[in-house]
Structure formats: C-alpha cells, structure tokens
C-alpha cells in the first residue's frame, strides 16, 4: 500500500471511528435530559442549557475527527 492510499484510508477511518463515541455520548446526554425534563418540567430551561453544554463538550471529539479527516485528505 502506498502512502497516498494509506492517507485516504486513514482519513475515512479517522472520521468514522471518531463519530462512534460522541454519537453514543450525545445519545446518553439527550436521553437523560429528556428524562429530567419529564420528571421536573419546571426545571426544563436549566436542564436544556446544561444539555447543550454537555453536547458541546461531547461533540468536540467528533469535530477533532473531522479535522483529522481534512488533514489526512490533504496528504493524499
């Protein structure tokens, strides 16, 4: 396998693998936020802000994978 093929393969794998963990994580965050909102509707606003905060932290990992995709794609 030459270096360009390896870079392309790595680019695809980098984003694909980086999307797994944050996908599961955002699902857990949003699911638990929905549970909290249903149990205490009066706290819904605060729960929603905290949920977006948690999603932002989780999502950053997937975005690092996306950047890695562009870096490796540029190498190919």
């Amino acid at each position: 396998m030459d270096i360009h093929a390896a870079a392309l393969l790595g680019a695809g794998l980098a984003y694909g693998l980086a999307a797994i963990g944050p996908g599961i994580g955002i699902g857990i965050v949003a699911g638990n936020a929905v549970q909290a909102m249903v149990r205490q509707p009066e706290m819904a606003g605060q729960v929603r802000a905290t949920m977006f905060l948690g999603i932002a932290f989780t999502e950053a990992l997937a975005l690092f994978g996306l950047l890695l995709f562009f870096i490796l794609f540029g190498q190919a």
Partner: protein
Amino acid sequence: MILAQIVQVPSDINEMFDWPAILPFGINRVVLLMFLAAIVTFLFLYLPFRTPRIVPTKLQVAAEAAVEFVKKDIGRDIIGPESVNYEWLLIPMFFWILFLNILEVTPFINFPPTSRMAIPAFMAVFVYVVFLFVGMKKHGLRYLFRTVVPEGVPKALLVLVTPIEIISVFFIRPISLAVRLFANMLAGHIMLTVFFLTSAAYFVLSPKLLAFPIPFAFAVAITGFEIFVGVLQAFIFTLLTAVYIESSIHLEH
C-alpha cells in the same frame, strides 16, 4: 467594487480554503464579511438603545429581548451576580458570532467567515487571556496552584490528576473552544455546498431523470438546520466563555 467582491461566486471549492486578497493589507472577502458583521453588530446594539422609548419600536423589542437573554441565561445563570463585570465581553461576542454564522445562509453571500480558522482561533485566544487574567487578578498565583491541584484530592492521586488538569485547562480548553465553532460551521458549509451542487448538476446534466428534487429538498432542510446550528454555536461559545470565567472566579469547584 467592494460590494461586487462580497457577493462574488467562487470558481471552485478550493477557494473555501485559499481565498485571494483583493485589497491592501491582505484584506480578502472573509475580512470584508467580518467587517460587515461587526458593523451590523454595532448598529444592532447602538440604534435601539440610543433613544429608548416607553412604547418601544419593533427593533427595540427584539434587541432588548436578545440582550436580556444573553444577560440572564448566559451571564447571571452561570457566573452569578458578578456577571455585570463581564457583559462587555459576552454581549458583543454573542451577537458578532451570531451574525458571522448567519451569513452562511444569507442569500448572495452564503459563506460563514467563522469557517476560517483565524476568527475562532483569535476569539479563543482572547477568551483564554481573559479567564487567566480574571483568575490571577482575583486569587494571584494561588489560582494556578489550585487549578492544577484541586482541593480535596488524595495526595496519591495527584500524580494522575495534575497532568490531566494541566493539559485540559491550559491546552485543550482554548483549542476545543476554537475547533468546535470552526468545524461546525465548516461542516455545515460543506454539506450545503454538496447538496446544492448535486441538485444543480442533476438539473443541468440529466434533467429527464427528475432526480434533482431529492438533493434540493435535503438542501432546503439543511438550510433550516444551519440557522439553528448558527444560533446554537454562538450560544455555546458565549456559554463556555461564561463557564470558564466562572471557574476562574470560584475556585472551589
């Protein structure tokens, strides 16, 4: 001439990453859009509050509601009563990033300047300097010590906790703050480009196939989604700025 440069259509997709300068001092289209967003932000925050009325105009109602949202939901809810000292940072930052993001779906412009790394990176460095300065001013060098050696952690665990805290607070924080905004807007812009270009190519190359409505419908749906993402990313950037400032003020957690 400048207006024509702002609304120009790039000849290929590589111009998204490599934009030529059109004016002295390396001013290119992205910088012009940045100035445009800054002017819009200034007018949005200046005109309605120059002569406030008892019976507000429409613009004043919108501006008051939006500014109150930043003051309360981002400032007071996160930082607490001391948020008054940091509103000079939070309010213009929120609206500037918001208008920069909304340029992504503005007709004839269709380019979010935040999808160039320079702007989010500079904002993140600015936020980094601000929250370090706030912590050092309030607690002195004890701020640095308490950040890397949190209170109540057993001594044996410090071998593990201190390097993690150093990396996460002083390196990952500014990088992830910049990358989050940048990569979100870049991904959205690429998605819109791909779907609109696909529908245009189907329409031009094989109009009898009648396949062009499918990617076009996706593109319209994603345009709506990108408005949501633009507002959300401006909110999250400002919210995280508030969270970092709060963690510098209150050391105990």
